[in-house]
């Protein structure tokens, strides 16, 4: 019998890859919201100004519509969507209330510096029913924030402004070093937007929320520079396996 028999060979370590951390964060949030009962829908990244702005009550005079904030394509016929909100319009036009759905994906702003990228990711959701109110919105937001940052996190709601919600709020969490960090925007759907989507605003009301995925991913993983997500450095990516 050969003395070699029975020797244990070293383990063969096969490398495991990784889903991009931004997509992991997105899937995490989507899964949670689908569990609550939201449907998931998709929408195009190239949008009309009508869906990206007008239908959302973002008037021609709004600063966001300037050439220095929004990418225009096809001889100004279209825009690269500046937020995922036009999907809400598409969803509302396609469905009849009560409706509850979310959407997520890439959005574009004409920015490129240390803290802003020309492309980033958002998730947002909307729920329209006969008796949706701000207190319901708070409950939903608390659940989302608790899911992301734990039940003990301190949360602050403060008034803000989005043309498509009224009242509008921004939500902050208290960081370990005592600073309030803004993590999402939300509000009661502006009745003008409901009417734009042929929904009777005297009968129905809605809540809506949106969050920037990079922001959440940076906080969760402890990534300080947003640009690290898009350098495609394997040493970076492999940490998320």
């Amino acid at each position, binding site marked *: 019998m050969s003395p*070699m028999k029975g020797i244990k060979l070293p383990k063969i370590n096969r490398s495991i*890859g990784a889903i*991009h951390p931004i997509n992991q964060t997105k899937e995490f949030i989507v899964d949670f919201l689908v569990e609550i009962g939201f449907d998931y*829908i998709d929408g195009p990244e190239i949008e009309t100004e009508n869906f990206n702005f007008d239908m959302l009550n973002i008037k021609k005079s709004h600063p966001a519509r300037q050439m220095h904030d929004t990418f225009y394509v096809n001889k100004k016929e279209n825009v690269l969507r500046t937020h995922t909100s036009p999907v809400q319009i598409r969803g509302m036009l396609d469905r009849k209330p009560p409706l509850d759905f979310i959407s997520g994906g890439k959005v574009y702003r004409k920015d490129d510096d240390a803290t802003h990228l020309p492309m980033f990711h958002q998730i947002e959701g909307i729920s329209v029913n006969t008796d949706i109110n701000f207190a319901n919105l708070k409950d939903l937001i608390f659940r989302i924030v608790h899911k992301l940052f734990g039940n003990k996190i301190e949360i602050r709601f403060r008034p803000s*402004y989005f043309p498509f919600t009224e009242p509008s709020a921004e939500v902050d969490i208290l960081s370990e070093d005592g600073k309030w960090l803004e993590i999402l925007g939300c509000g009661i759907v502006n009745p003008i937007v409901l009417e734009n989507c042929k929904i009777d605003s005297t009968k129905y009301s809605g809540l809506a929320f949106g969050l920037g995925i990079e922001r959440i991913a940076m906080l969760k993983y402890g990534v300080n520079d947003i640009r690290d*997500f*898009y350098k495609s450095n394997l040493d970076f990516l492999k*940490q998320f396996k």
Partner: protein
Amino acid sequence: MKIFYKHIVDHINDKPDKRYLSEKLFQLGHEHEIDGEIFDFELTPNRGDCLSTMGLLRDLNLFYEVNSIKPIFSKDIEHFDYKFSNKAQDACPKISFLKIDIETIPDIYNEELESYFLNLNLKKNNFFTDISNYISYETGQPTHCYKAEEVENGLTLDFLDKKQQFKTLFDTKIQIDPGNLVFLNHKNDLVNFAGIVGGKSSACDLDTKTVIVECAYFNPEVILGKATKYSINSDAAHKFERNVDLNSHEYVLRRFLQVVEQHTKILNVQLYSNTYKQSPQTVIDFDLDRIINIIGKNIEEKDCIAYLQRLGFVIKQKLIYVPSYRNDIANINDIAEEIARAIGYDNIEPKKFIIDKPKIKSHDDAVSQKNSIENRFKNLLIDNGFCEVINDPFTFQNIKSSIEVDNPLDSNRKFLRTNLKNSLLDNLLYNERRQQDSIKLFEISDVYSGKSNMSKKLLGIIISGRVDKNYIDFNKKLNKKYLVDILNKFIYRADDLNYEVISRDGINSRTTSTITYVEIELDANTKINYVSNDNENKIFDLNIKYTPISNYPLSVRDLSFSIKDFSKCELLDNYLTSIDNDLLKEVFIFDHYLNEKNNEIKIGYRFVFQSKETTITERDVNKIINPIIEYSKSMSGVTIPGFE
């Protein structure tokens, strides 16, 4: 917008401290940072009415006894028979001009005016301009001061008909495009870029004793974006863009005069004022039930009325009359927000949100199918060591159907990509330059092309270098066959896909390994034959904590161990793979050979070193590797050829 703490708190009876005032301002929605005694605000764009001490105090009146009444010039003012022609009445529905003649220019300012410049660290210009800036800070209404002699023979407001050069009062020259709103003097010289910046030629100077003060309302649409476009830092434009109070002119100009009179003797004052279009009074039904339904909290009618009254609203016979400075209030939801702010968003108790309806399929079928294929591809690739990347779509490459960006960031990002190859090739080369020798990347993205913005979902896969970092795969090269073998597990006829070996000609790289690329269109028709354990949804927990990566070069050392006492293999491996050193990035077996004739095992270990702070030196590496060599050698039956 910077506001000095004292300029606010002096008007509040309770004198709240900074922390408490800050809390209340946040409750109102007025985001700010505090630097010493200065509150630096970033107000939401709908609240142009709060861009002043007076505006903030109007809001703070919800919580405090505010006393913001300031003395105004109360004498009668003569009519100013001014030759003003308004050829843009829609853009400017109201305008006033005040002509003031003073006896002397004061050497020092009173405490109020001086405090504005001193505490906010602002530069003084000249007497009238200084007052104009202060009045804007106090009331939110910008005014513009012309040297009277330059414009007293008449002024016209009109849209510019042809491009014209303009020297601003900051001494910079700009070319104003036709269509912009400007003021022209009687000689038709451009003297003021309306609402944005005044001209050098008509600006006041240190000797100006006769001034014409312009106080206007411009439609925000007319001003919007222009300061940014012409790179002018304009406080006036910032305010006009966010809307000012159409009905404030008389108060503002009388405040202006009061401050002048506090400093010098006014010899003569005349007022021209013209309203071309009245601002409509906004009236909203006072519907308490609606307000309660929107907020989701019971509110007493008397409290609701009190909140609104404290904010300047008038309530009469179930109607709410909105004050003229609140251009942002149009419907009952806006009113509900006012009430919610007054209560405090944080004081509204959450109420259970439930989605209660028959569960329909969460995606429509096509989307669901597509996502499922996408997720399965991802899992297959991850299991084989691939990393997912995400790239932006901007490229310099223009094919016939490329969609062109009208306002690109730069000429290298003028088009939208129609494939994923070039992004992935960039990613691959980036990693090669960082000494990665086994690169397996993929990206899944929608791409758009053509007149109708056709979209398709693509999966791009790119590989180069070693198959993996273990002794079986270390010397195998990533190539087409490798990809086919993996994809065959998953899709029908994977060998028929279009695999491309990307040439390194023209690519500046020292690496020579083959780059292979394949692109697959994912749609509901993509035929898959791989029904694994159907673990199609990976569960993410987001609990990974990222460690910053190094940008310094690697240093590699290989050691070949010869082992005759086979029981030592595991001991050696345990030792080598558990060395904890910040500079040692990884250790792995790259070669393993059993020599039956000599009764010997040879194991090759690779040690990869990298520092986070600097380029690692031979000495640094030796300091770590030498003790490893010594320790290994001390094991009986283990030798390291070359190190006996």
